[in-house]
């Protein structure tokens, strides 16, 4: 068991540094060097943070779905930790996505919230994956937590397309909805840089959380006879510990 090696540099630190650097370069370009968008003016610059967040969030949720299937298939704590880590990062990106979307919609459309299919779908998905995280907090037994939260994650993910289509029809049968302009050449570079930045940053964050969570979960699964005692053994500051602490 690797208990004392947590100080060293690992692959996730490299991903984090790369992601932050790409994101910073992309954002500086988007904020100060890219031309203002034709229709939206300067406000269009929000898209350099908004669109990459959306792309990265989709990838993070897809990874979470993959980890959940793997956890169900193998029952291994390492995938269980990955489910929680990717759900956390997915929820973080998703919350940011909704905030950026609202801030962008206000000057563009005059309202903070529109029932745009993408915006609405991401709100529903945020609640779904928050549910997965809440579920993990309230189940003290490690094996049951692995199975049930992975099932909840799978059910949440497979519903996303049908949520999207239902909201899309629900809106478009009322009124046609104009989507933002298609992306022009001069906007692509900062967009692409920021997108890869968000993706690498997300992967690094998942890796960081995964390594921290895995230690606690592997110990839990190794001692399934002490489900009630397991939360008390954790430090209050540790993720699993604070999680169980919220439930008890």
């Amino acid at each position, binding site marked *: *068991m690797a*208990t*004392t090696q*947590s*100080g060293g540099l690992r692959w996730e630190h490299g991903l*984090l540094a790369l992601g932050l650097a790409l994101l910073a370069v992309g*954002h500086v370009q988007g*904020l100060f060097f890219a*031309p*203002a968008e*034709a*229709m*939206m*003016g*300067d*406000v269009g*610059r*929000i898209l350099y*943070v*908004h669109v990459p*967040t959306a792309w990265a969030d989709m990838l993070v949720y897809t990874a979470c779905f993959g980890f959940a299937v793997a956890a169900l298939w193998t029952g291994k704590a390492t995938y269980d930790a990955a489910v929680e880590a990717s759900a956390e*990062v997915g929820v*973080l990106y998703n*919350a*940011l996505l909704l*905030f*950026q979307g609202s*801030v*962008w919609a*206000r*000057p*563009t459309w005059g309202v903070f919230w529109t029932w745009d299919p993408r915006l609405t779908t991401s709100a529903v998905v945020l609640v779904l994956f928050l549910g997965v995280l809440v579920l993990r907090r309230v189940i003290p037994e490690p094996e049951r937590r692995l199975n049930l939260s992975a099932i909840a994650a799978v059910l949440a993910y497979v519903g996303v397309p049908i949520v999207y289509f239902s909201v899309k029809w629900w809106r478009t049968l009322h009124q046609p909805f104009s989507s933002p302009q298609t992306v022009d050449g001069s906007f692509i570079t900062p967009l692409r840089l920021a997108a890869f930045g968000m993706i690498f*940053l997300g992967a690094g*964050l998942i890796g*960081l*959380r995964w*390594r*921290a969570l895995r*230690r606690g979960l592997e*110990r839990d699964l190794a*001692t399934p006879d002490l489900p009630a005692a397991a939360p008390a*053994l*954790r*430090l209050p*500051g*540790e*993720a699993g510990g604070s999680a169980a602490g919220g439930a008890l």
Partner: protein
Amino acid sequence: MNEVAEPVATGVITGGWSYIWAAYGVTWAALLLFLGRALLLSRAPDPEPE
């Protein structure tokens, strides 16, 4: 920032930099906070089971 194209139907939105700073500021702040928390938690020593 002088390459603003002519508006087609509606007026070009001007200004709005407070919204831009809000979007970028909150995003970076949240990402860095989450990163800091994750780094802190990944360095926490493993509690020794008795």
